[in-house]
């Protein structure tokens, strides 16, 4: 019954989305403005219904209902409940349902809470949101029904990829998804504004919270994904420039650019056409990312739910929405007036350069990721990987960081070059000092890029906090704090990356039980190897002891795990976190002579990479709260009076 109820809810939500689009369309263009009044309640009802459908699918997974095909192929009654829960979206159909659920709920939120926007733009936005949802509803209902039954019911499920049975990964895809869908709301706003020719500061202010929220979630999702790859793949790498990783990075780059341009539009009423363009690009990157992951046209470690038929469906949606939006852009943008002008030395220029550099990096990642596909069309197989991206995108990113340091120290509208330079004096001096010290100490031992990275990170870190200099910290607005923390986070993350590539110590060893091995300052001893069992796995676990200098011994337990359903082996690295770095130990195979393979890394300050990521997200969240709080307070007061 539950599955049928879910399917009915989904059909009803589909019908309501259709109604929502029709009402908005006739209301705006068909000369029946009286219809517009019903758009908002319909949007809310659609959000509620699709939410119910998703909740029912979760219920089916939690109850391990083996008469539902999706549960059979993706779950197992022996699985811990957390992974049953996460299994709901750990597959193609479930994740698509999550996608429309978030879109529906976001649409309901836009209908309920958006007050400042002009009514026609608001309704056009809701119509656009319904149009996008419709495509995904159709996808679900006609090609990927998550509620399909199997007859007779299966005795038990076929499990979930054990690599995915991990708390980090259970919540990494939905976080990215929420980010993608947040960008779809920004896209709907852009379509609404183009349709009603109202690209202005009010539109930017309405769109900004959605962009910020999407960006915060994308940042968290990428950070979590990177940490997951770091400890789960067992080779100490945290970013592989894999197509699927790039697919999550591209929307983030576009959202970062959009975040800054929307601020220019909201504050100074400039960059109108560009902001609309970026909103379209940001969402198209989300869809391209989804397409690349699902269609399997590129080889990837992460490829899951690969199916050319689904790929075709997503590609059709992609062509329809993005092609349509770009055509609308070409047709309507001529009617969008130029925004306010600005001087060469001004914060606006800095932000434009920021947007330019981010777009260049985005373009490079896109071209690099798709290049093998292009050459294959000519029958020539090539690989584009880390060496290309590091060497080409790395330097552009470093320049971007320098602009990021200078931007907040430059005034809006007009500033003097001399004054900006004076404000950058301290960070500049730090940069010079660091560069000289590093060059004398470590020249030839570390690469040029890590050396530059460390120098830039420390000076940019100093420059990021400079906007707080001589300010009353309690009076400083929350969004300024947000900006400072996010920028500082970028510097912190860069410092972590540079330290990891410059100073990591690697030790590969084959040891007997009782032997010691030295890795950097650490002395490790293999005490014993014993079998242990978990919920749905068994493992060989090494007990090891690690000592640094004269410190106390710490025990470590790296494992190699075996999952029964489906049969898979994984390595579970043991991580020992210290303030100045992480010790990373992996247990490998046993050799014939009874020695065990160990892979050991000491990675100084590597944790800064993800700490920086969390800081960036926190900064975004503070900016979001800071910007919105004023509006909320006003609304609340208004309601209290009434």
């Amino acid at each position: 019954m539950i599955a049928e109820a879910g399917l009915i809810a989904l059909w009803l939500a589909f019908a309501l989305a259709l109604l929502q689009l029709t009402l908005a369309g006739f209301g705006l263009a068909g000369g029946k403005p009286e219809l517009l009044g019903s758009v908002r309640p319909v949007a809310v009802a659609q959000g509620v219904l699709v939410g119910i459908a998703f909740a029912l699918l979760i219920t089916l997974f939690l109850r391990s209902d083996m008469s539902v095909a999706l549960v059979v192929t993706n779950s197992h009654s022996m699985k811990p409940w957390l992974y049953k829960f996460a299994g709901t979206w750990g597959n193609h159909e479930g994740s698509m349902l999550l996608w429309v659920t978030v879109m529906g709920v976001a649409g309901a939120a836009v209908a309920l809470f958006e007050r400042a926007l002009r009514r026609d733009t608001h309704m056009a936005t809701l119509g656009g949101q319904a149009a996008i949802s419709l495509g995904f509803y159709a996808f679900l209902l006609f090609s990927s029904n998550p509620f399909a039954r199997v007859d007779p019911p299966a005795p038990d499920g076929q499990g979930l990829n054990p690599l995915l049975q991990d708390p980090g990964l259970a919540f990494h895809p939905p976080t990215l998804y929420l980010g993608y869908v947040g960008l779809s709301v920004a896209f709907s706003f852009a379509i609404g504004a183009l349709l009603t020719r109202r690209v202005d500061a009010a539109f930017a202010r309405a769109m900004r919270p959605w962009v910020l929220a999407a960006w915060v979630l994308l940042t968290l999702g990428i950070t979590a994904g990177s940490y997951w790859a770091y400890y789960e793949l067992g080779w100490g790498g945290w970013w592989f420039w894999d197509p699927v990783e790039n697919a999550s990075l591209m929307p983030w780059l576009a959202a970062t650019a959009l975040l800054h341009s929307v601020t220019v539009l909201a504050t100074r009423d400039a960059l109108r056409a560009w902001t609309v363009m970026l909103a379209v690009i940001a969402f198209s990157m989300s869809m391209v990312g989804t397409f690349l992951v699902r269609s399997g046209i590129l080889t990837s470690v992460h490829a899951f739910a690969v199916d050319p038929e689904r790929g075709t469906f997503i590609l059709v949606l992609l062509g329809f929405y993005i092609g349509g939006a770009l055509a609308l852009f070409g047709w309507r943008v001529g009617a969008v007036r130029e925004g306010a002008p600005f001087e060469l030395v001004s914060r606006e220029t800095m932000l434009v350069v920021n947007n330019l550099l981010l777009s260049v990096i985005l373009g490079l990642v896109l071209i690099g990721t798709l290049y093998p596909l292009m050459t294959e069309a000519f029958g020539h197989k090539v690989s584009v990987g880390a060496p290309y991206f590091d060497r080409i995108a790395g330097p552009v990113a470093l320049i971007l960081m320098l602009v990021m340091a200078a931007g907040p120290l430059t005034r809006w509208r007009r500033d003097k070059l001399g004054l900006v330079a004076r404000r950058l004096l301290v960070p500049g001096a730090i940069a010079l000092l660091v560069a000289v010290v590093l060059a004398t100490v470590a020249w030839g031992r570390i690469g040029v890029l890590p050396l530059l990275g460390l120098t830039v990170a420390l000076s940019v870190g100093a420059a990021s906090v400079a906007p707080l200099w001589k300010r009353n910290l309690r009076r400083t607005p929350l969004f300024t704090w947000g900006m400072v923390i996010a920028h500082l986070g970028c510097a912190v993350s860069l410092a972590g990356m540079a330290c990891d590539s410059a100073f990591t110590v690697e030790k590969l060893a084959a040891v007997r039980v009782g032997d010691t091995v030295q890795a950097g300052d650490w002395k490790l001893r293999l005490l014993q190897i014993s079998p242990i069992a978990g919920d749905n796995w068994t493992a060989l676990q090494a007990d090891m002891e690690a000592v640094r200098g004269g410190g106390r011994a710490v025990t470590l337990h790296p494992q190699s795990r075996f999952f029964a359903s489906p049969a898979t082996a994984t390595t579970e690295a043991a991580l020992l976190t210290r303030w100045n770095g992480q010790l990373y130990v992996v247990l490998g195979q046993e050799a014939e002579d009874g020695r065990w393979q160990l892979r050991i890394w000491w990675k100084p300050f590597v944790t800064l990479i993800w700490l920086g990521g969390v800081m960036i997200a926190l900064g975004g969240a503070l900016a979001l709260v800071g910007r919105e709080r004023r509006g909320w307070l006003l609304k609340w007061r208004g309601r209290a009076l009434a």
Partner: protein
Amino acid sequence: MKRLLIWLPLAIFLGFFALFASGLLKPDDRVITSKLVGKTLPAFSLPAAASDRPGLASTELATGKPRLLNIFASWCLPCAAEAPQLMALAQQGVNIDAIAIRDARADVDRFLARYGNPYARIGLDARSNVQIALGSSGVPESFVIDGKGRIVYQHVGDIRADDVPMILQRLKDAQ
């Protein structure tokens, strides 16, 4: 100029769209073929991998008659699936030699006892050195070698029953 710039994003997008569509239309091709096809075999000399067959050297593959060089391993499941086809080829008079990858003599003996032995010579490539030198990316793979020791064809994956006539034709063409 500005008008052109406005339509540029749509043009670029259409380009990418065409690329994606062509990527979808093409069958999924993950096979990495050897670039040595058409060239002379690299020189090698391998010890015997089985108790009752001699080892294999590259010179023994240039005997004036085309030969089939099969890359296999006792631990590889598709290799067992391929065994009947190789037996059929051997019965039709095809000269088949083999290289066993990362294998142990006892395991190879057991494998041959169980699935049959179509090979004249079997070399043991314990560290995949010859496999890498051949540009082979996995097991099983088969190379058609002409009488002068040149690689004329590479078959990636197991030989299915309906591949047998094609392999025979390749061997005939190599004469």
